[in-house]
């Protein structure tokens, strides 16, 4: 990606946004889960990486501005501020409560409203269509004062039905506001239904182009695409930028996703433990490009991206720590421009300490070193270097290796732990069955030590093994041969996802039983469960609903 960011840390924090938003909404009994979830990545990337801001001094004059014009995304917005450190996440339970600072729609902080507004909220939203104009005022002011602060705006797509949006759309290019960046949360749903049925806004890209904006279109749930778009917007002179972020309303909770019913409806509070479990069950598929036929890496990366891979797993082997040799940092550097997908780089090399800077230079997003290749002192040097570049740090252990004790005091800086389920060195090996219990046990121990990162299963992961490692707690699945030895990469990845989803649904049903809400859950989840009913053994039950 070429950015300074800890990819996995941000990913985990965005998950926290959703969890805290859903807790607040379920507690309040009302609110807008859909809009909060479609914009979670946008707000997360802004607050956790991009904005110049200081949660301990919200009125810092050097801050960038975030104007949330779609005020109904308040639960997600508040959760973002809480996770960013503006107020305790525990206060989310006061959402929409009488006397609460967490009003139904965000309120600009001021002394006179200090009991009804949160420090850090710049703009009182709720009436749609106004925020872009207000942002123009801020951007103009920054130009008058010769300040470099930027203004970021979040617009809903339904919100652009408002005529004032187009007044503002005309105005920003007139004043050449290159310090203004708009995110259009293009989730295609508004209160009454789908945007293109209620009031079509397509061709939305053409409209903004015609209004003289710099237009960038992305998948708004992909952190790396948001970062890339923001980077591009910073290079444009004399024009405002709009990033059309194609999103899914309710993304994160399957039965809410892309369903207009969940625009402004709260889930029953009894369901919230299940929703949280689903959010925590989020996983990633990271195909390893050394697998499969001798085909060039560029082609494999492109294919994996088209097939919906979440990351690219890069197995670096030096012929010393492992027998095989694959590629080194120079190759990664050449591959970098091909994709925005995060590079999940797994160093199977001796003395990683000596070479770590090369992988930092190659713009990897995650760099994982084997505990067998460094001592604590070396690891700390590696840690400091990697983290100082905003890159996620991982450690890996071989099948027979235990986690060394020095790992535990460092868990806060470790975003991922790869637990090898084969002996490293070659692709195409058979999964070692003992790995499952190793993942399960380590996951438990790590959680007890407060580990908030990911466990990554690497080696022999395919449709027959993915369920057990997922169940044991792995949330990143390295898939090599299962993907690239398959003539149809798309269906290989779909198959892996399908298997993992079945496991997730089974776990959720178990939780529903524990909470005595099986029937309610089946009703809410019906359209998700129907295609999985056979594998879950609930066909009769579903048919009776």
């Amino acid at each position: 990606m070429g950015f300074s960011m800890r990819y996995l840390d941000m990913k985990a924090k965005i998950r926290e946004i959703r969890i805290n938003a859903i807790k607040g909404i379920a507690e309040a009994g009302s609110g807008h889960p859909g809009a909060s979830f479609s914009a979670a990545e946008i707000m997360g990337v802004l607050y956790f990486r991009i904005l110049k801001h200081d949660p301990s001094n919200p009125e810092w004059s050097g801050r960038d501005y975030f104007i949330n014009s779609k005020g109904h995304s308040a639960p997600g917005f508040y959760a973002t501020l809480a996770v960013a450190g503006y107020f305790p996440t525990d206060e989310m339970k006061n959402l929409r409560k009488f006397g609460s600072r967490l009003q139904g729609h965000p309120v600009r902080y001021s002394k006179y409203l200090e009991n009804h507004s949160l420090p850090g909220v710049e703009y009182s939203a709720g009436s749609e269509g106004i925020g872009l104009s207000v942002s123009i005022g801020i951007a103009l002011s920054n130009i008058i004062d010769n300040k470099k602060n930027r203004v970021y705006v979040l617009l809903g797509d339904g919100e652009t039905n408002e005529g004032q949006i187009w007044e503002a759309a005309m105005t920003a290019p007139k004043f050449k506001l290159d310090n203004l960046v708009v995110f259009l949360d293009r989730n295609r749903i508004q209160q009454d239904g789908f945007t293109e049925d209620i009031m079509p806004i397509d061709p939305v890209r053409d409209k903004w182009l015609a209004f003289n904006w710099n237009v960038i279109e992305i998948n708004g749930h992909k952190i790396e695409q948001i970062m890339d778009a923001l980077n591009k917007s910073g290079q444009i002179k004399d024009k405002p930028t709009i990033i059309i972020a194609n999103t899914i309303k309710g993304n994160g909770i399957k039965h809410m996703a892309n369903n207009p019913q969940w625009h402004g409806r709260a889930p029953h509070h009894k369901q919230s433990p299940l929703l949280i479990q689903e959010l925590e069950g989020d996983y990633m598929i990271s195909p390893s490009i050394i697998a499969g036929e001798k085909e060039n890496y560029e082609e494999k990366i492109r294919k994996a991206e088209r097939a919906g891979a979440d990351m690219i797993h890069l197995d670096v082997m030096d012929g010393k720590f492992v027998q095989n040799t694959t590629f080194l940092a120079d190759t990664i550097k050449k591959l970098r421009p091909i994709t925005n997908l995060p590079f999940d780089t797994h160093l199977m090399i001796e003395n990683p300490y000596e070479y770590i800077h090369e992988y930092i230079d190659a713009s990897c997003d995650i760099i994982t070193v084997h505990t067998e290749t460094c001592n604590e002192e070396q690891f700390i040097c590696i840690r400091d270097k990697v983290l100082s570049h905003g890159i996620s740090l991982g450690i890996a252990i071989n099948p027979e290796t235990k986690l060394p004790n020095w790992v535990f005091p460092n868990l806060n800086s470790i975003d991922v732990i790869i637990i090898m389920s084969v002996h490293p060195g070659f692709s195409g090996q058979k999964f070692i069955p003992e790995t499952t219990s190793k993942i399960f046990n380590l996951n438990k121990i790590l959680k007890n030590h407060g580990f908030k990162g990911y466990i990554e299963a690497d080696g022999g992961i395919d449709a027959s093994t993915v369920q057990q490692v997922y169940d044991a707690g792995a949330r990143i699945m390295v898939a090599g041969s299962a993907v690239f030895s398959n003539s149809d990469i798309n269906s290989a990845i779909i198959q892996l996802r399908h298997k993992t989803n079945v496991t997730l649904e089974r776990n959720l049903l178990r939780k529903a039983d524990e909470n005595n809400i099986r029937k309610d859950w089946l009703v809410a989840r019906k359209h998700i469960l129907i295609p999985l009913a056979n594998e879950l053994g609930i066909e009769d039950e579903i048919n009776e609903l």
Partner: protein
Amino acid sequence: MNSSVKFADMRSAYGNTLAELGMINKNIVCVGADTTDSLKTKKFGDKFPERFFNIGIAEANLVSIAAGLAMTGKIAFASTYAAFLPGRCLDQIRNAICYPDLNVKLVVSHAGLTVGPDGASHQQIEDIAIMRSIPNMKVITPSDAVSVTRLIKNIVDIPGPFYIRLARPSSEILYEENDSDFKIGKGNILREGSDMTIISCGLMVYKSLQAADNLKKNGISCRVIDCYSIKPIDRDLVIAAAKETGYIITIEEHNYIGGLGSAVTEICSEEYPCYVKRLGIKDIFGESARDSELNLLLEKHGLTEKEIERHVLSTLYRIKNGNLS
């Protein structure tokens, strides 16, 4: 008070004052909506082009941009015709300016019927009612060019939203430069009197003075109050008038519902119930009248000194006959 009546227009007073203030206070910015020539804010724009923004014919955008400017510490003046701001932009004024209590000064011109030839679409007669019902908003209606200058200078130093209502025609100058300090929340007694009080605002203040002077010739003593600050209103002044003169007539170039008359009535009914006659536009729309015919238009709606006199006399007559207590 001048003995020989001079005329000046409120808009030039506003434009000149703003340009003058802009020299002293670099935080002042001004936004216009394709009416900057007419509103005389162009002068500010010519002097300080970097602090002046013409937003075009987009009033909702205009006031919201002003809000954004105010959010970063500017004193934002937003100006256009009264016809297009308080009604059209009520939502933006309410949510983007008043709720967060931002430092935006909405200075509008062409209020009331005296817009003249443009007709009812341009004759803003509901704005006082609308604006004074929004929390945090302050409503000011200067009565001449001198008070415009003084009031604009005063509000620059008071944080928060203001609505300043100017009239289109060149109008009689009522004040000398230092006649009053024009505090917000105060009113000026321009004639002392004991039989009755006439409370007025804007261009109707001059009519009230004329009426009072005419009545004086017949031995009737009317107190005349220029109630330029409609919100906050000078409660003490109104209560004193009620107590000391017993009867009040209000007159305004505005619908008689919700404006100055209502504000006065609200105070009296709670603090010192007394007879209050509200003169204003009788809940109907205006119509075109050429500049030479403005008096006809005002006459049709009862906004003349003669009408004030008539009401004073008929009120006194009813009192005398015991029909009014």
